[in-house]
């Protein structure tokens, strides 16, 4: 077992643990922290997979900005411990079991697809990706969706403007 594999297992365990903890913890703050753990673990995996820039963005934007927003809102709303109501029999009796079944389905098929998994890039070693190439791709080939995302942010601003403003 080589180093990267061990690291992979460690990070995977961390991510899974975070996810499970997200589900199980009753306080939103704990859940949020669990999610941050998952994100950081994933950032590690990105590094392992040779996507350094993405890993950085993941930590800064996701773990930093977005999750801070979450925590901020949790604090703002003074959200307490989650009350575990069971008003939906559908969710409890069907949704959850099928949710697990769905997970197994996905894992089964993804694992099953391994034999057909493309490995073209594996030979390339994976470290060829440079941030520059990424930039070229983003600002040339995918400039249109990129510009669209700016409007997405604009929309988000409107949302804050419209929804969160005090009543006049």
């Amino acid at each position, binding site marked *: 077992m080589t180093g990267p594999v061990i690291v992979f297992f460690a990070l995977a365990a961390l991510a899974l643990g975070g996810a499970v903890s997200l589900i199980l913890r009753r306080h939103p703050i704990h859940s949020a922290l669990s999610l941050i753990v998952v994100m950081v673990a994933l950032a590690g995996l990105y590094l392992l997979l040779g996507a350094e820039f993405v890993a950085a963005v993941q930590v800064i934007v996701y773990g930093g900005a977005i999750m801070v927003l979450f925590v901020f809102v949790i604090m703002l709303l003074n959200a307490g411990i989650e009350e575990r109501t069971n008003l939906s029999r559908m969710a409890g009796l069907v949704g959850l079991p099928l949710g697990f079944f769905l997970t197994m389905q996905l894992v089964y098929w993804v694992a099953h697809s391994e034999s057909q998994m493309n490995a073209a890039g594996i030979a390339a070693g994976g470290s060829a990706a440079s941030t520059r190439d990424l930039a070229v791709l983003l600002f040339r*080939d995918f*400039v249109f969706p990129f510009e669209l995302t700016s409007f997405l942010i604009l929309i988000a601003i*409107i949302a804050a403007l419209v929804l969160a403003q005090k009543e006049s």
Partner: protein
Amino acid sequence: MFPMIEDLRRVAPELVLCSVGTLLMLLEPFLPLSRRRQISTVLAVVGAVVALAATMYPLRNAGTAFGGLLAIDGVSVFFHLLVGAVALLVILASGEYLTRENLAAGEFYALVFFATAGMGVMASAQELMTAFIGLEMSSISSYILASYRRRALKSNESAMKYFLLGSFATAFFLYGIAMVYGATGTTFLQNMSTGAQNLVLLRLGFAMIFIGLAFKVAAAPFQIWTPDVYEGAPTPVTALFSAGPKAAAFAVLLRIFGTVTTVHEFWFWALWISAALTMFVGNLGALAQSNVKRMLAYSSIAHAGYVLVAFAASNRIGLAAVLYYLLAYALVKVGAFTVVSHLGGEGERRIEINDYAGLGQRQPATAAVLTLYLLSLLGMPITAGFLGKFYIFKAALDSRLIVLAILMAVNSVIGAYYYLRVIVVMYMREPQESVAAVRLPLTVGLVLVITAAGTIYLGLFPNQIMDFVSQAGLLQR
């Protein structure tokens, strides 16, 4: 490979929509407070008309844009015109509503424009991530629009449900894109049929994509959010929801379906079953509704089911039928929700079916127009809805989907009941309390005239539209 001016011309509608949206938002603070709404409305209407006019260029110059990210073809132009028209009508219809509910107009129109731009992108996107961004643009705008009546509990709730479930479904869609990417190494639809393929991942991916899109078009069993969201959202917004995003999601389905041939086999049974389920769920659910908005929401589920039948048929006439039907349906639904919005009164208080008692005498013109919409939804001849249904039957039978056609026939009858019930109330019941007739504002009147005239015109003279939507090469391959 670097974008040219030609690329920008081909996305002229989106450019116009986004700029007008931004402009409206920026301009509003500087408008005089007393006439702010009116000016915004005028600007928005002008903007929408310009956006519609801007489709002329793509109409004449088919091709691709941005290195194949977008396909500018008949389908794309058709949907641009469709969602543009919907936006125009919704803007016209919502002036009265915003005034009545005392809501800011500038942001509202801006959001409508952004949403429409997103739908436009969806309609022409040939690359899945672009489609996804378009989808998110329209969705996120929609979430905000749904909660636009901030203080109304129902509006909030509608927004929350739409947002949570919408994002949930989007995640599926996105995961599907990832799987497809993993299977083919590309997100460009036109490149998917070539090269190495991981069949398992491909199927899995398209299954997830189907889930995401089925959610957006409200196909069973993913229709579940629709009634709540439609009921809670401000009524003009409901009009937009029922016509715009749904059409755009169908456009994406159509493009995937038309471009990636293997999908036919993947999706056939899913479409078949979903179509049947959707029709039944929509129509049966609508039977017992007492709220007009909710009833129309269920009805829109049912109609999505009819469109899915045409999808399942997957032949040329089926494609034409989908487009024709969506157009006819959009006209009618926008019109109907506009009437509901108009009649709802302050705070949307009068949206129960029984509130319409005696409408035939109180407001004969409004009642007549609403009757026309209902008849079109029901599929009565000389309305657009009938021809739409007819073309779907045609498509289904041409592909020998006889059982599905018969199920659809059964559903038409079930559907007739609740549409007729509204007519019953309007014309055959006396009003429970004396309600004053509401004057019809010019803009709302205009919407009604346009949609009603369009419904009848399409019902009697479908040739132009049908010639357009059934031409060869409508969809770029």
